[in-house]
């Protein structure tokens, strides 16, 4: 394997804070120009990993390679990275121009070159009219643009984003999300983006690394993560409303549980064929078919509606299946009422099966 093909490589990274192991033997290869999202709930070590890549935290063991060079002992400024922080971290006493040029001045770059780069970044981010303002006179969205600009002027190959949109309101977040995506297609450099928001992860990423307890649970494309989660944790974490899990047994190519009897024909087993034993089946609420489509589904059953949550674009129905709650996502225009009995269809090919003990995909 040639290291030059990778933009960033993490090799067997360990990080301990005293007795607490935050990162454990972590490995991650990131290709040139890739948009990688580190996703996980708080405390999973995703921000810690980003800080290690940036050089703001010293790893206890392992290596960080950037651009084919071992940078484990390098200062953050020497690693060829730009970083955007959640709280923007703009220098309050400097103007926007001062904020953008601070890093370049430290690198003793000639004045006209600084001016050229600041102008270019300001142009890309459309913050030219703000250049002489102080951060206090900017709105949240403008501050975040300046923070991105500060990474942009450094002319680096790798951008690190530490939950950059978490401090913004929902609408602005959606706008800036698209802008970051546009920026990536325009600049085409490697971006590593930390978030706990799965919508951001799914929409932005080329590949997502889902982390838990300092380990990567799955590292693949959003499509793969959504459709073929490697383990129960990933399956549960991705998707909103989250996946339905039903415990049962596989026997002779059939999955049985109270209220369910699914023929697993068409299900793509990891090993190629089914092994008998206890298993958990995961079915996404949006993969449950209702209405006229039911007749085409391999398995059909009747459920009782418990709770209806209309959300406009779609409706979430909590139903009772074999005595356990079961989430079904329906069209927003669907009219269902509490206490009704509804016919639903399930498709085993779109479900996910997990081992009860290891929680790994079957």
């Amino acid at each position, binding site marked *: 394997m040639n290291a030059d093909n990778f933009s960033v490589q993490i090799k067997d990274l360990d990080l301990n804070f005293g007795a607490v192991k935050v990162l454990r033997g972590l490995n991650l290869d990131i290709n040139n120009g890739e948009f990688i999202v580190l996703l996980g709930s708080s405390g999973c070590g995703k921000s810690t990993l980003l*800080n290690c890549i*940036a*050089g*703001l935290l010293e790893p206890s063991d392992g290596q960080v390679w950037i651009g084919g060079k071992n940078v484990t002992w390098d*200062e*953050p*400024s*020497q690693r060829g*990275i*730009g*970083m955007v*922080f*959640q*709280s*923007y*971290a*703009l*220098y*309050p*006493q400097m103007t926007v121009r001062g904020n953008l040029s*601070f*890093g370049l001045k*430290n*690198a003793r770059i000639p004045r006209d070159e600084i001016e050229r780069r600041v102008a270019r970044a300001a142009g890309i981010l459309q913050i030219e009219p703000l250049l002489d303002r*102080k*951060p*206090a006179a900017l709105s*949240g969205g403008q*501050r975040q643009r300046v923070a991105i600009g*500060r990474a942009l002027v*450094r002319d680096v190959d790798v951008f690190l984003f*530490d939950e950059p949109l978490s401090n913004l309101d929902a609408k602005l977040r959606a706008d800036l999300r698209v802008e970051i995506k546009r920026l990536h297609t325009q600049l085409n450099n490697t971006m590593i983006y930390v978030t706990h928001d799965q919508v951001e992860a799914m929409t932005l990423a080329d590949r997502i690394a889902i982390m838990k307890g300092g380990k990567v649970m799955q590292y693949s494309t959003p499509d793969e993560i959504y459709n073929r989660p490697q383990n129960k944790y990933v399956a549960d974490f991705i998707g909103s409303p989250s996946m339905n899990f039903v415990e049962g047994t596989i026997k002779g190519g059939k999955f049985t549980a109270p209220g369910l009897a699914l023929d697993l024909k068409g299900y793509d087993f990891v090993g190629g064929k089914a092994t008998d034993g206890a298993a958990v089946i995961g079915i996404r609420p949006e993969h449950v078919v209702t209405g006229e489509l039911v007749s085409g589904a391999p398995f059909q059953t009747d459920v009782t509606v418990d709770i209806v949550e209309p959300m406009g674009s779609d409706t979430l129905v909590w139903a009772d299946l074999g005595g356990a709650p079961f989430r079904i996502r329906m069209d927003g225009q669907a009219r269902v009422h509490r206490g009704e009995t509804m016919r639903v269809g399930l498709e085993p090919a779109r479900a996910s099966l997990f081992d009860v003990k290891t929680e790994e995909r079957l």
Partner: protein
Amino acid sequence: MANASTNIAAAGPRGPKPRRAISGRNIMIYGTLGLVALYYALPLYVMIVTSLKGMPEVRLGHIFAPPVEITFQPWVKAWAQACTGLNCDGLSRGFWNSVRILIPSVVISIAVASVNGYALVNWKFKGSETFFTILIFGSFIPYQVMLYPIVILLREMGIYGTLGGLVMVHTIFGMPILTLLFRNYFTSVPEELFKAARVDGAGFWGIYFRIMLPMSMPIFVVAIILQVTGIWNDFLFGVVFTKPDLYPMTVQLNNIVNSVQGVKEYNVNMAATMITGLVPLTVYFISGKLFVRGIAAGAVKG
């Protein structure tokens, strides 16, 4: 029906609630405040009035009466002619001594303590917490305990009885409280700002001078107030670590006021006391304004 309800709304209470300027409550509050202010201002009044009287008028004993004949002679005498020991050049000698002690002590102690605080927060090293604890513990040891050891220390260093020695003592004794002050302030500066500066390639001093220092004007003003008043008002160190030629103003004031020979010149004593108190007073007045401005300028979110 709808019409009736809007009528009721219009007739009922609306907008700010009217308040009466003179109420029982206001009379109580302002009356009490006025009385207390009078109680505190009275001694100052007596001092000013007495310092503007000639000795014959002082001897009459009407301490509250305003001066019949205003004279500034006591002030002139206190500043330039009052005798302490062999020197008869008034408080001016002590004033300049105090200034020569004050300026280096304040500058050095604040410069060192602010760097200390910055390093303790942002550049944690192994044992930095222990170091900080020891430093803070130092502020609980009574000064008197350390007087004699320090005398010996200064003697061995050959700077006992010099202004330099006293400056050093002031700098060292200012360290615990100032370091605590700066450390706590720098803790409140978001850590991400420091990280951003590191990514931007600024080093230890670069971050200190270009990021932290410009953001910390309020706390520097607080430290200056603390040190200026503390060092100016110091008596103990001044009397122990210097000799008569180099006595700071406070020690000299004491020698003037407590001299047992001759007539007690109350008017000169009052004037001398007020001249001595002028410096901390001025610092309070000027820096109070700066302080508010500093806080307002520093209150930048994000």
